[in-house]
């Protein structure tokens, strides 16, 4: 079963995510970027990382996580930023374009969308 990493602190969305992918993908959840970095998970068999992005509450560590995945962990899978908002300031947009594959709005979460994302990956 393909593995998906979710970094999300809101239990509601964690449950939503879990419900969407139930039986189709394995979800590995971390409640914060620090938690994810500290655990130092082997990402070889991870297909995608979904990173929560909360506007106005972003710490430096969270901001740097996508970069960390690409540079430090040499992660080749998909990095998806998901947020309640879809508009970003210029600086954030540049950063996201550099290190993330896609930006999702939380309300658009669906199994079909996840499957489509992972089908495109490496196919």
């Amino acid at each position: 079963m393909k593995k998906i990493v979710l970094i999300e602190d809101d239990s509601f969305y964690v449950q939503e995510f879990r419900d969407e992918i139930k039986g189709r993908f394995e979800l590995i959840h971390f409640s914060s970027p620090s938690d994810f970095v500290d655990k130092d998970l082997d990402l070889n068999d991870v297909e995608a990382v979904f990173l929560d992005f909360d506007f106005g509450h972003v710490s430096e560590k969270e901001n740097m996580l996508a970069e960390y995945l690409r540079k430090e962990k040499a992660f080749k899978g998909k990095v998806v930023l998901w947020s309640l908002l879809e508009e970003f300031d210029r600086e954030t947009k540049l950063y996201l374009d550099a290190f993330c594959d896609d930006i999702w709005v939380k309300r658009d979460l669906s199994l079909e969308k996840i499957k489509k994302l992972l089908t495109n990956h490496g196919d």
Partner: protein
Amino acid sequence: MGLNLSTHSSIRKGVRRLVIKVALITLIILSVMMAILTFIQGKAALNNEVYNFLLQEKESLTSIQRELGYEKLVGYNYAIKYLKSTYGFIEIKSFKQKKHIKCLHEFALNHNQYPTSICLESPFYYSMIIKMNTFKGERFVVMRKAFNPFGGFFWTYFLILCAIIIVMTAIFIFFYREFVSITIDPFMKLYESVSSSKQTNFLSPHLELNDIFQKIKSMQKKQLENQEKLLTLEQENAVNKAIASMVRMIVHDVRRPFDKINRLLERANKKQPSELKKYFETVSHNIHHDTKQVDAMLQDLMDIGHKKRNLNLKPICLKSILNSVYQEVNENQVKFFIESNKTTITGDEFKLKRCFENILSNAIQAPGEKRYYVEIQDCIHENKAWTKVVLGNIGGSYISEERLPKIFKLFYTEKKENGRGLGLAICKKIINDHGGKIWVVSNGYTSFEEKTPTRFKEKNYVEFHILLKRDP
């Protein structure tokens, strides 16, 4: 353009002439000063040495004078003539010291008598006094005082003066080049560009320079105006950025419960009634928490928006308010230290409670295992009676010295959860509205102007100190 270039050239020449004139005048003044100095020194040497000697020899000179039968001391020419006629003395043609000694030596060999002599030199005067005893017991004094252009000191001074002139000239040349290349040339270039753009005929270099300076002045004024505009724009930009950030934050936080409610409704259509109840129980608490947060945030914004004091003042018991606030934390973890005769003050109960809640909430969100303590004590500050409240926690994290001054600033936050940067700013506003003061102390550093000793050396601690007037 040709006219401008010729004008440029004439101004350059004028400036060059001016610099050379200044250099020459300075050199002449320096030379004259050196000559005067030398003369004074030579005169002083002559006066001090020759005439002091003469004064010392006054008695012997008088006796010589008497023996010779002259009313005055003999002059040089007469003495030489006398010496020659009597002893075949060779006239001293040169005043060079060596030759003089040689002459005297020859004289001594011829007459078996060595004269005592004194020869003094100064840069401008040469003085010689010869006193000698002959076989016959005759004594002669020969004095000579003459201009001495070849005195050793003269050459020394002359060489020093030459060296100074050479060095000064080199310095002038260097500074002239630097002055022209650094100071004049930019003006010339500026002038060329200005004049070429306007094609103005100038009457004289002075007028041209005045015009250039006027233009520079005008440019400086414009530059200052532009800088002011830029600063205003930067400030406006910073304010706009803060507002944009705040709006995004508000939209984000307000949208969250709505987004969840939408999802809840979508699920409700898909789930069975039995599943729905369980699902609703699971998520309702979460959504309720979000709506409470939105409500708190809106209240924060309302509070910040109020510029005037809007207090509902009445006597309140601080201890009971703090007790109710700290119910959120396990009571065993909170220690109360009360050193006050009267813990009742006049204040707005709702707002003060909100202030204490914000501080506690701030402490709870910080990482680490903490123990909480509350101190209430009486104190006198600026001849007024105050009640001091300290809300502290120990064993958790600390606030660094750099962060302390920012902690009460609006929108300053380092936390993700509930970190809107409003809570502590509101605390400060509430306390200020009460006429009180608030500051934070952590590991010996404080946001207040006063220094504070480190209270707990072994562990991290954060304390909020609040001064409340008894009757605001």
